[in-house]
């Protein structure tokens, strides 16, 4: 006796339920974004306004004349009760107003807009290097588990986990710049080109390519390749290790046996069936590593004199420019939140099981 299954048994849920499910996801995302951002601002408010004994001093330094101090105190609303201060702070921050940098005398947001593309370019290239090498390495290590390749990947990864990046940066400068002369002096572009090259997007590699300035492109490349490779190495360590774990997990699944029983080649089984499944959690890993490279820029950019947000923050730190430091913190924090949300969305689109749930 055979009962053909009815279509309701297949569908599982009606269209209305699915739409409601989608609305619930959007609502949850909104709650997460709003509370996380509020939390970020509360913490920076606490750091900037509550911890310092005199926030005005923290912003202006101790050399400011008395009438300026009084005016700034008024402007910052420090005479108001704390909760009103926080509301004002909130309003300002939401409009992207983080005050003025003492060091550059520009609004902090203007400064950050100027330096952000440099960091963005560096971290993106680093993540690209890390993923394009790290994922295949992790796959190979998992497939040839226990082999020499596996051991090598493990050791390369362990060192990448454990090495102080600023130190590795110094040593690599010593080797590749001072000794071998393979790369350019720290910085982003040679002084020669600073006047002949007008970037549009702020991403020098793309800009020079777009404008067909090959000599500029070569120079930019010689500047970026070392810091990007270092960041790439750090993300490679993380990505290859996680790829290996995910692949080991997938390769032990029954659907792999089924794929073999179908007569598929090992190449297709590994690089298509298993990797396509491992890619679902890998997206989160790559996103996290991208975020950590943005943050790691604080340490690498100082060594390579890379004019990005990391260098901006550390320079401001050294000059006790609190507005700039906190503005930078909020911007990096906001990017973190955005990356988290994006990776979550990407995860959902890659995994059919979580789609529209």
């Amino acid at each position: 006796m055979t009962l053909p299954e009815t279509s309701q048994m297949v569908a599982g849920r009606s269209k209305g339920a699915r739409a409601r499910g989608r609305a619930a996801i959007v609502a949850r995302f909104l709650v997460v974004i709003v509370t996380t951002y509020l939390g970020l601002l509360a913490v920076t408010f606490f750091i900037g306004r509550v911890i310092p004994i005199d926030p005005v001093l923290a912003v202006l330094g101790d050399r400011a004349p008395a009438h300026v101090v009084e005016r700034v105190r008024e402007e910052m609303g420090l005479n108001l009760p704390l909760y009103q201060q926080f509301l004002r702070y909130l309003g300002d921050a939401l409009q992207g107003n983080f005050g003025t940098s003492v060091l550059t005398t520009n609004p902090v947001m203007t400064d950050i807009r100027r330096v952000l593309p440099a960091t963005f370019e560096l971290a993106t290239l680093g993540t690209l290097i890390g993923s394009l090498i790290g994922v295949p390495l992790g796959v190979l290590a998992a497939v040839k588990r226990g082999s020499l390749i596996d051991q090598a990947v493990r050791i390369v990864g362990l060192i990448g986990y454990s090495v102080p990046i600023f130190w590795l940066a110094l040593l690599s400068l010593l080797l590749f710049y001072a000794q071998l002369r393979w790369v350019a002096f720290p910085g982003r572009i040679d002084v020669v080109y600073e006047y002949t090259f007008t970037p549009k997007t702020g991403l020098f590699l793309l800009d020079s390519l777009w404008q067909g300035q090959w000599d500029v492109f070569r120079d930019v490349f010689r500047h970026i390749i070392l810091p990007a490779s270092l960041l790439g190495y750090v993300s490679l360590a993380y990505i290859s290790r996680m790829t290996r774990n995910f692949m080991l997990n997938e390769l032990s699944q029954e659907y792999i046996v089924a794929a073999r029983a179908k007569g598929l080649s090992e190449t297709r089984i590994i690089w298509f069936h298993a990797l396509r499944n491992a890619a679902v959690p890998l997206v989160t890993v790559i996103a996290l590593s991208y975020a950590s490279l943005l943050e790691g820029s604080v340490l690498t950019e100082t060594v390579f004199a890379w004019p990005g947000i990391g260098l901006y923050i550390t320079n401001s730190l050294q000059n006790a420019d609190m507005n700039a430091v906190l503005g930078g913190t909020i911007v990096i924090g906001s990017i973190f939140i955005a990356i988290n949300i994006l990776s979550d969305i990407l995860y959902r689109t890659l995994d059919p099981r979580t789609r529209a749930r």
Partner: protein
Amino acid sequence: MSPLLTVEDLRVSFPTRTGLVEAVRGVTFSLGRERLGIVGESGSGKSQTGRAIMGLTPPHARITAKTLTFDGIDLLKASPRQRRELRGNRVAMILQDPKYSLNPVMTIGRQIVETLRTHRKIGASEAKERAIAMLEAVQIRDAARVFDLHPHEISGGMGQRAMIAMMLIAEPELLIADEPTSALDVTVQLDVLAILDKLVAERGMGLIFVSHDLRLVSSFCDRVIVMYAGRIVEEIAAQDLRNARHPYTQGLLSCMPEIGSDRHPLPVLDRKPEWAL
């Protein structure tokens, strides 16, 4: 007529830290275009026998046999490539649980088409047509829609039908079904078995039906092999099962409850160490 599959003194062993573990220890049988059941408890080597024939044992396993031929092809001497060309094409296998044995991120249709296009030079649209026809053959209604669904969107019974479709689409001559209904709801087990039965009969395939369920196997197969601790303890035609000689088979039979008889306490399966020798 020479048999489709000849297995003589098949041994499968796994080296472990504590020594060699022998999962299959000298199994001999041959198979024509008939339905053979292999029964045994877990760890008896029945699944490993099936996987060894498919060439799906893990790489560190050691496989030896006096003879292991499929349609005159020596499987032990065949290159990995030759064996791969057999798999899914002339010899196929159905796994236990469709929840795990279907790739969760691929649609049902793509997985079926993949088998076909691996073994036949055939265009995409024709492959799709044939896959949908195959889905209809395993009695899935609305096959064109199911074609585009992901495994998690269909029920277990339907998943196993899709699995059967995926494995039979290239029209193999031998099918190994490894506990194909054990993970399914009791209510759909019979449906899936009926479909399997019909297709095997229609297409004249040889079938190895691996199961722990003696009654199921005896009602479904022509011949039954009973395995214990890696060896065959009994080989018998299904209708003669009541006359089984080996005490283990008798034990298995007497464990099955019967309607109308009140047997308390139910007998416990006896396992004598000398059977494993």
